[in-house]
């Protein structure tokens, strides 16, 4: 069977594939041919994976900033709060919201691998999975934060969460000052992926 043919109903990339990619396509084709999964299953899974993005987390955070009752529900039962906003977080076993304050900042890492709240933040960035981040975030969190542009005064406590088991963590960052009266949609534009991992603050203004 040719890897680059479309004789079974879909196109494959025409450029030279790596041996790993060839193996993946071969396994995929076999699974479909044997009826283990269908083309439709694969398409649904791709759509599901792409729907999982930091936009989900940003929506939750922005809503929590403007709605104190929602914030309380988000902290007490994050999965129910996700369902309330139409975000599918059912794939997470358990999930915990870490609320930043003026005196307390949280930061999340998985030193063992790359555990990450994918349904609400999408795929983790490469740096989150790097040995560099995984080693240095636990030893020198303030140094790592300063490389992301966040300089914390000595009297702010830093709590690093090493996500080693069944719990997934998201940081609820501080609402930037000067955003009183903003809409949820505009506030969500300030909530970066990195601010929900906890290595930096939300943006002060909407990016151009």
């Amino acid at each position, binding site marked *: 069977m040719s890897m680059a043919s479309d004789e079974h109903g879909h196109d494959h990339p025409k450029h030279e594939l790596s041996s790993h990619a060839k193996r993946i396509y071969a396994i995929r084709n076999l699974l479909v041919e044997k009826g283990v999964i269908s083309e439709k299953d694969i398409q649904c899974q791709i759509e599901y994976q792409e729907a999982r993005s930091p936009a989900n987390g940003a929506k939750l955070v922005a809503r929590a900033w403007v709605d104190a009752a929602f914030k309380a529900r988000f902290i007490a039962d994050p999965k129910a709060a996700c369902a309330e906003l139409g975000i599918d977080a059912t794939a997470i076993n358990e999930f915990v919201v870490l609320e930043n304050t003026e005196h307390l900042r949280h930061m999340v890492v998985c030193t063992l691998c790359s555990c990450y709240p994918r349904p609400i933040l999408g795929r983790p960035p490469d740096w989150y999975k790097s040995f560099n981040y995984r080693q240095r975030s636990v030893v020198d969190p303030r140094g790592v934060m300063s490389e992301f542009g966040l300089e914390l005064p000595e009297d702010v406590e*830093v709590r690093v969460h090493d*996500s*080693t088991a069944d719990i997934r963590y998201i940081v609820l960052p501080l609402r930037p000052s000067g955003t009183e009266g903003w809409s949820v949609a505009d506030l969500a534009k300030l909530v970066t992926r990195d601010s929900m991992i906890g290595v930096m603050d939300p943006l002060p203004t909407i990016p151009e």
Partner: protein
Amino acid sequence: MGRAMNAVSGRFKPGDRVKVRFEDRPGHLRTPWYVRGKSGWIERVYGEFLNPESLAFGRDGLPKKTLYLVAFNQSDLWGEANKADKLLVDIYEHWLDPVPSVKESA
């Protein structure tokens, strides 16, 4: 909290001092090296979860293990650190031993 998060289980409660076992053996161990042998305290009881050391080898994960959020002072782990800074790790009960309080051991 979800289903397991309400569970009150296990031998420890929030505030209890604990020491992480310093041990090594072949297998899928989810307790980071840098906290083995270190002392901290229970911050939160997460409830009972399937044991990843069993799940990783295609077994059933039973019996379930109580999972805790355990807090450590950064200065107890690394020496030099901001006095207020903490590190929090999710650790299963079979990795934790009680640390008697000063009163009890006196």
